[in-house]
């Protein structure tokens, strides 16, 4: 539960970072440029998220020319992280729909 999350899970608090993880899980690996193409954030922002994931031990980077290519660290963390990222993204979507539905259909006090 949230009161005993370790540094691993603290690194997952940011929704963009979870999307970055989900993309790394889907693609197998990625550079800041590649990941930024899939997200509405800048390459620089993605690079920071990737570096933070590296610091937290969730991803590992290897230089590749001028870029760094990241992969999620091996199982079981990879599976756990991918599960949390995908289930979390699903609930973010559902609850965003619920908020929109309430806004459109209920008289706000």
């Amino acid at each position, binding site marked *: *539960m*949230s009161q*005993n*999350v*370790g540094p*691993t*899970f603290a690194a997952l608090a940011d929704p963009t970072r979870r999307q970055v993880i989900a993309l790394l899980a889907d693609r197998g690996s990625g550079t800041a440029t590649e990941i930024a193409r899939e997200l509405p954030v800048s390459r620089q922002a993605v690079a920071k998220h990737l570096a933070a994931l590296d610091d937290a031990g969730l991803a590992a980077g290897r230089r590749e020319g001028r870029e760094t290519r990241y992969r999620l660290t091996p199982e*079981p*963390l990879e599976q*756990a992280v991918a*599960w*949390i990222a995908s*289930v*979390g993204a699903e*609930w*973010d979507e*559902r*609850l965003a*729909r*619920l*908020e*929109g*539905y*309430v806004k459109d*259909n*209920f008289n*706000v*006090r």
Partner: protein
Amino acid sequence: MSEKQTVEREITVPMGPEEAWDLVTRREHLEQWLAPEVEIDVRDGGDVRVVGDDGVERTGTVELVDAPNRLRFTWETGEERPTIVEISVSPIEDGTRIGVVEREPIRIEAAGDNVVQLRRLRDEPVLLAA
């Protein structure tokens, strides 16, 4: 890994808890936000069937109904391990908080002095010193 796999989210809605409870239990509301097809028989042991935007069907069972505060059910796609979803409704100042927790089911069993056995469904038991 030792951390439990848990996802937690919450939102606040500008209404009372009874109305918020309807949002999370009545089909006509659930089908506006949870998934396009939702059948939840809201009583202990009731059937759950949810079909998502992607056509993925989840089925499960209602484990707990504590109106208008808590609804807990299991669901699974058949391909992945079943998980438990608990939706909580709590009155706060100026509205109601709707919380969602989804996690893997872990049963805690006493297995002798100072040892607690955590058994994940379909997994090997994990023994931890209490």
